[in-house]
């Protein structure tokens, strides 16, 4: 079975101690409904969904408030066994902000429940009735090759469903949800099953098409089970063993998926659908980092396999925009640098005027995304945030839990499919006004100002369990060091380029201080993220010849930790003063305040903007950032002098 769908891989995995967390819920700080929804936002298997449902039922029976979840009563009528599905519906609905109560009707009493005025369903005060019927529930007469009879059969089915609908309408205020039919797997003919009138497959195809018109015309809601079954594969959807054993309508492994789809539909009925797609840029909309790789370096072309993957994301975003979803950007980049591909790259599909709000800066994304929501006057719970970086996804899930953040797989080729599979933008109706909605936000790629920083960012960073590792240049790191030295443009103080032999020489020169820095965290190894070279200047001073950093880890105060290590090593080498140099280029404006931020004092400013800075080692006020520090390979002789 396809794990993307079976395991709902757009959802993060549940915590290992799910049962314990569920038990601890009544003691948590926030409102119960919020805590329940938070637990439900991970992938939960059938057993976990069942436990969550029981918890919700008990809380409701004990008259505990489930706010802010929206209450919803759903009656389920089926020709099959839905007992195991019902709790999964309750657990999954919580994911979408709904406190669901299910009224389960008696097994295979479809017509009775719909038509009898005092049936369990008709007296249940339900908000909606789900007719969970499969093809076995319907009067299907095989009439091979007989177009007239086949047409009559199809009409008969639609009329039957309409009778059911009227029964509900006359006796309650519930809206009816009808499912399309998953055809059986076994062909009778083979090639002709689909097109020859009157075969089972052909009847079902015709019914599914007619169902669409019937549902729209009568104000009902459609749940497209045929599409869902087709997506996972009919052979995996249908399970003869379970049908024979206990009349299960489909494989038990697909209960979480089916339930999530029902939950999306209920949420859409309540108007709780995604309205905004907030997009990261680097390695999400294109392959590469625009600040470091430049326009020539990013991949977004057709014909390039990485570029195609990201183009598919852009295409999906454009398609969503066309149906009324608003697009926004949240990127850690200099604004002008981030806008450049939209303006000038010939392979970009997305243009600036497709984007309603464009936030590219070096502040944290939680503060930025909150500002986007406020600018659009839309609730955070209507936002969906797409970012390849698990650290950013974790930040938003932690600090802005109402924002939907899909997990993404390692392979960008599956980004578009994963976002689409998440069903964040499910809707029950489409009107022509939707076509114009995105434009109503006046897509002028507006840059909105940031208010107060969203609280909790520092605490989140501290929870990342970061380890920073320092060592001198060595042969193993050399290739990467040379690569970084030659391709870094943004966070690069002097943009000095060196060849491999020149770096090897620096490695072996005892008067030159070299530093390579690696960073790892909860999400994995970020690799080498900084390169520093200090050369002897005036006696007792080091001139910082090279200082560059990877843009990927900015905002975590890593530069403070690097300075701390330089200062430690300088002290050990009897160096009293560090001299910083900034050579401005077109690309490195963001580091103009790197040295003053670290406590250096300016000593010189040249005509072309070059600046020099000084820090006395003994007076350095070093900020401490919570992370583990490893420092290895710096050789000392007996007097602790650097060798």
């Amino acid at each position, binding site marked *: 079975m396809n794990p993307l769908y079976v395991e709902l891989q757009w959802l993060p995995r549940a915590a290992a101690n799910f049962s314990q967390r569920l038990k601890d819920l009544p003691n948590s700080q926030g409102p119960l409904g919020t805590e329940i929804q938070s637990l439900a936002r991970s992938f939960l298997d059938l*057993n976990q969904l069942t436990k969550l449902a029981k918890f919700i039922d008990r809380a409701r029976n004990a008259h505990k408030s489930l706010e802010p979840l929206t209450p919803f009563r759903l009656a389920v009528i089926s020709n099959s066994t839905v007992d195991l599905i019902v709790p999964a519906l309750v657990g999954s609905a919580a994911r979408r902000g709904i406190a669901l109560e299910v009224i389960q009707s008696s097994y295979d009493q479809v017509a009775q429940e719909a038509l009898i005025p005092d049936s369990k369903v008709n007296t249940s005060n339900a908000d909606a009735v789900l007719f969970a019927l499969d093809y076995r529930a319907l009067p299907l007469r095989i009439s091979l090759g007989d177009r007239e009879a086949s047409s009559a059969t199809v009409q008969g089915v639609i009329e039957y469903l309409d009778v059911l609908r009227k029964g509900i309408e006359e006796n309650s205020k519930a809206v009816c949800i009808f499912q399309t039919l998953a055809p059986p797997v076994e062909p009778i003919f083979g090639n002709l099953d689909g097109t020859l009138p009157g075969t089972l497959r052909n009847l079902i195809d015709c019914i599914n098409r007619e169902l669409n018109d019937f549902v729209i015309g009568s104000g009902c809601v459609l749940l497209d089970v045929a599409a869902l079954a087709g997506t996972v594969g009919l052979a995996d959807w249908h399970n003869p*063993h379970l049908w*024979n054993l206990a009349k299960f309508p489909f494989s*038990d492994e697909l209960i979480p998926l089916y339930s999530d789809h029902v939950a999306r539909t209920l949420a859409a009925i309540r108007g709780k659908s995604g309205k905004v797609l907030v997009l990261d840029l680097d390695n999400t909309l294109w392959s590469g980092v625009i600040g470091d790789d430049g326009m020539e370096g990013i991949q977004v072309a057709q014909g390039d396999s990485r570029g195609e993957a990201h183009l598919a994301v852009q295409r999906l975003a454009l398609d969503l925009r066309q149906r009324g979803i608003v697009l926004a950007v949240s990127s850690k980049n200099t604004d002008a640098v981030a806008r450049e591909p939209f303006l000038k790259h010939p392979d970009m599909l997305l243009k600036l005027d497709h984007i309603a709000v464009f936030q590219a800066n070096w502040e944290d994304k939680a503060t930025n995304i909150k500002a986007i929501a406020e600018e659009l006057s839309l609730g955070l719970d209507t936002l969906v945030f797409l970012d390849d970086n698990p650290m950013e996804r974790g930040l938003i899930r932690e600090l802005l839990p109402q924002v939907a953040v899909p997990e993404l797989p390692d392979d960008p080729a599956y980004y578009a499919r994963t976002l689409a599979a998440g069903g964040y933008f499910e809707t029950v109706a489409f009107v022509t006004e939707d076509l114009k909605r995105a434009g109503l936000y006046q897509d002028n790629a507006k840059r909105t100002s940031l208010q107060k920083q969203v609280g909790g960012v520092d605490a989140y960073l501290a929870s990342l369990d970061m380890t920073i590792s320092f060592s001198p240049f060595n042969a193993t790191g050399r290739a990467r060091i040379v690569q970084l030295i030659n391709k870094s443009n943004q966070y690069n103080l002097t943009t000095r380029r060196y060849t491999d032999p020149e770096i090897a020489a620096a490695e072996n020169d005892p008067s030159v201080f070299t530093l390579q820095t690696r960073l790892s965290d909860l999400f994995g190894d970020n690799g080498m993220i900084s390169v520093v070279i200090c050369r002897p200047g005036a006696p007792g001073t080091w001139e910082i010849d090279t200082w560059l950093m990877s843009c990927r880890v900015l905002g975590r105060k890593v530069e403070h930790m690097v300075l701390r290590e330089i200062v430690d090593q300088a002290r050990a080498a009897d160096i009293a003063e560090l001299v910083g140099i900034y050579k401005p280029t077109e690309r490195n404006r963001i580091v103009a305040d790197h040295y003053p931020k670290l406590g250096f004092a300016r000593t010189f400013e040249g005509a072309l903007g070059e600046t020099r800075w000084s820090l006395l080692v003994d007076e350095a006020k070093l900020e401490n950032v919570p992370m583990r520090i490893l420092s290895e390979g710096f050789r000392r002789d007996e007097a602790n002098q650097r060798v």
Partner: protein
Amino acid sequence: MDEPEIYARLATIFENVFDEETIQLSPELSANDVEGWDSLTHIRLMLTIEKAFRTKFSTSDIGNLKNVGDLVALIKART
């Protein structure tokens, strides 16, 4: 797989499937002894066991189980 290991893994499975805190598994334990162990929960339990032990049970396999002891013997035979 030996019986102590089967019992250990079953203990986790029972915790996941049932609402009760800790169910003491013994060979004599049966559906009568555990609250909520009805026919449909039994199906959910068997499906969970199938996946955990990577095996499949036939209808007749399941029909002949009277207690946890029978279940453990069945799992041992199939793994």
